[in-house]
């Protein structure tokens, strides 16, 4: 028993004592709960306690002056039932937001949006409330996975959209539990990491509007209310406040199946908007600390969402680091993808910094040492840092150049052969391996933000009218091609071509050097009907339609085989232990072996990868050849010669409609060329034929 855990005072009938000043947030301690909060501007602070769901508080307990050290208020209140308790703070400032009950920035559970889409009462004065969490969990020995980053094959998914559609046939659609039911599917596909769109508590009604009677939601969730709390509305058990347990079980079971968990996190702004936005937490607690403000006190908007978090203020830095550490230590997640990460490198006056303390801290933090750190290396304030993001040799980046160059080349644009060769071979022109290591480039052709892969080859233009902005939202630079008809068609030739282009993209993605990322549903031809900005579409438009899995079984099988193929050839992951004698690890070719055509009109690329792999229990030389014909006419391809003990086998020919991946591949005779069809991709692998 500790002698300093006994009540020292009584206030309003509640036994209290000074709390844990080194903590922030609420923590269960013997006999009570410690509530601690920072503010540099508050003159005084009052703890506000509610019973669950009650409109009026049952206790208002002012922090005595002696319960404040520096800018931290800390108090233990004894004899509280933590399961029937919601809390917030009143803070007295000179300025705005007086009398408003404020959410704890460190709240580990937040109530108020427990069931997705359930409208709160219009006049609810305190709509988001902190709850006290019990962090203990039966992990059964689990810890964050330690598999090498080179083995990442990332699958980007939205928790709700992944299983909300009736065709998912899960018991708990649209939830962490629903996703859990799909783990066998993910394992069968072969991905090694799932990247979840934001799961920090957000308000799906943020920016809510109705147009033509259709409700629009903040569906993607890029607008954080609380950084430490999981989205309750994504939990089937959210109405029982068990979202923490449900999410932890999901992480544990994903790990048991060899799948890492990466969270898409949004630290660049909050749900509080600008001067006209709601005051939920940070604004009322200490807006000068938490936000970048203009000299006259207005909100800078580098995020495009009204405000900008003051990420390099020491207190905010501490909060972000504490948050990341919390998700690693308590939820066992394996990494993070940072939305508009360039904001994390801006100074307190908004200027980009050469050596941003926050990014440096993340790169060197002991608890984050093995965590995947992925930057979306730009922001809405014009900062574009693809290739120049301050990385400390640790950070990976969404490679927007890969997406754009591949999209343009694969639809048949000229003038891109040399750039595309660079993208396929690891984008070393952008990411110097000496400084950036082997895994800096996250290669992707599609992501949540833009067309799905099927739509990329079904639409020339975006079709966002359903978003209610007269088609003014969403990018116009999609580099897509509808193959001859906009949208749905029954034309068999067009459909054949679309399927081939989808497979072309997959074949190139999974044979490129770098970390591949695919958008959930692309592996079975999911469509958003041409909508390239489904941020507000909580509807069948954005939910994955699992009935397509049966319809497009050949596409799924192709993705699955390509993922397995990638895993079987370590040099594609920069994990080869050596290079065959006399061969460079990567070489470029054209219709003629060893002759790459750098001319502007070239649309035919060959890339050969040479390394070592395990086969039949022994290490052998290994060669992979990727041939891309983005031209609308067939071309005869001469493959580079192999050592005499080996011959080429054609593993992939996307001209083959039903079996583009050849499970029993045909061999090519020495010197034999291959006729690669129009707009088609081939992949060959070396076969050992003996001495």
């Amino acid at each position, binding site marked *: 028993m500790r002698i300093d855990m006994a009540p020292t005072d009584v206030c309003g009938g509640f036994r209290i004592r000074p709390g844990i000043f080194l903590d922030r947030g609420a923590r269960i301690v013997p006999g009570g709960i410690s509530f601690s909060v920072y503010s540099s501007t508050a003159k005084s602070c009052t703890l506000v306690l509610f019973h669950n769901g009650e409109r009026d508080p049952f206790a208002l307990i002012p922090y005595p002056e002696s319960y404040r050290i520096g800018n931290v208020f800390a108090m233990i209140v004894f004899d509280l039932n933590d399961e029937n308790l919601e809390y917030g703070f009143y803070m007295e400032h000179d300025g705005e937001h007086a009398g408003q009950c404020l959410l704890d920035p460190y709240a580990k559970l937040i109530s108020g949006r427990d069931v997705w889409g359930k409208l709160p009462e219009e006049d609810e004065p305190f709509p988001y409330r902190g709850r006290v969490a*019990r962090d203990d969990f039966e992990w059964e020995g689990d810890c964050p996975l330690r598999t090498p980053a080179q083995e990442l094959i990332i699958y980007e998914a939205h928790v709700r959209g992944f299983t909300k559609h009736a065709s998912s046939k899960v018991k708990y659609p649209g939830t962490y539990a629903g996703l*859990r039911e799909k783990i066998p599917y993910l394992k069968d596909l072969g991905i090694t990491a799932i990247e979840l769109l934001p799961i920090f508590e957000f308000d799906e009604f943020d920016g809510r509007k109705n147009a033509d009677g259709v409700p629009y939601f903040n569906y993607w969730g890029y607008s954080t209310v609380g950084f430490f709390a999981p989205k309750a509305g994504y939990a089937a*058990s959210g109405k*029982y406040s*068990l979202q*923490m347990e449900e999410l932890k079980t999901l992480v544990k079971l994903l790990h048991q199946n060899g799948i890492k968990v990466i969270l898409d996190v949004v630290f660049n702004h909050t749900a509080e908007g600008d001067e006209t936005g709601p005051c939920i937490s940070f604004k009322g607690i200490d807006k000068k600390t938490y936000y970048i403000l203009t000299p006259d006190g207005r909100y800078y908007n580098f995020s495009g969402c009204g405000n900008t978090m003051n990420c390099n203020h020491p207190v905010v830095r501490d909060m972000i680091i504490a948050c990341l550490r919390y998700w690693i230590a308590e939820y066992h997640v394996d990494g993070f993808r940072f939305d508009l990460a360039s904001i994390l490198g801006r100074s307190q006056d908004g200027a980009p910094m050469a050596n941003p303390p926050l990014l440096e801290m993340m790169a060197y933090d002991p608890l984050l040492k093995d965590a995947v750190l992925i930057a979306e290396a730009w922001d809405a304030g014009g900062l574009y840092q693809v290739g120049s993001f301050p990385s400390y040799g640790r950070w990976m980046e969404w490679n927007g150049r890969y997406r754009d160059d591949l999209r343009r080349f694969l639809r048949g644009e000229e003038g891109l052969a040399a750039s595309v060769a660079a993208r396929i071979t690891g984008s070393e022109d952008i990411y110097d391996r000496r400084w950036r290591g082997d895994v800096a480039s996250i290669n992707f052709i599609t992501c949540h933000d833009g067309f799905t892969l099927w739509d990329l080859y079904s639409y020339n233009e975006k079709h966002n009218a359903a978003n209610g902005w007269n088609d003014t939202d969403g990018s116009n630079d999609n580099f897509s091609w509808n193959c001859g008809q906009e949208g749905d068609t029954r034309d068999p030739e067009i459909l054949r071509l679309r399927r081939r282009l989808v497979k072309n993209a997959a074949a190139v993605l999974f044979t490129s050097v770098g970390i591949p990322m695919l958008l959930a549903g692309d592996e079975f031809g999911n469509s958003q009907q041409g909508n390239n900005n489904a941020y507000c579409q909580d509807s069948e438009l954005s939910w994955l339609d699992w009935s397509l899995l049966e319809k497009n079984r050949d596409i799924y099988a192709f993705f699955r085989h390509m993922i397995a193929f990638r895993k079987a050839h370590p040099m594609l992951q920069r994990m080869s232990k050596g290079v065959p004698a006399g061969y460079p690890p990567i070489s470029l070719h054209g219709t003629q072996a060893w002759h790459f055509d750098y001319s502007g009109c070239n649309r035919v690329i060959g890339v050969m990868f040479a390394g070592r792999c395990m086969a039949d229990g022994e290490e052998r030389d290994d060669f992979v050849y990727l041939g891309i014909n983005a031209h609308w006419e067939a071309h005869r391809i001469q493959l580079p010669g192999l050592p005499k003990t080996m011959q080429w086998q054609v593993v992939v020919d996307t001209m083959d409609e039903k079996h583009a991946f050849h499970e029993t591949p045909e061999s090519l005779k020495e010197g034999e060329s291959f006729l690669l069809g129009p707009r088609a991709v081939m992949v060959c692998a070396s076969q050992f034929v003996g001495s």
Partner: protein
Amino acid sequence: MGVLCVEILTERDDSIRKIVLSGRLDTESSQELCSRVCNLMTDQPMLVSLKKCNYISSAGVRALLVIAREAKEKGIKLRFSDAQPMVYDVLDMIGFLPLIEYRDTAAEAEAELL
């Protein structure tokens, strides 16, 4: 207010020790639940019926896990069974049914314990 009742259905010399939990499994009852059930553990297999439990909270879930772990450490075969819909749903949603060796019916659980 969490009110919990632990009902003992069998005597110590029966082949299975059967216990019925009734009431609310929450923060106010969970500590007592753990100590009472753990005190009832002998070397007999144990069947804990949840058929009269009408509510379970986060603390109640933890109590069941503590009981399951205690039984495992003591080498006692233990099964939970017969949860009411709300309790079953909670345990199912959060994926805890496998952790506590839950069976849908007492008969199914008994068959494994004998």
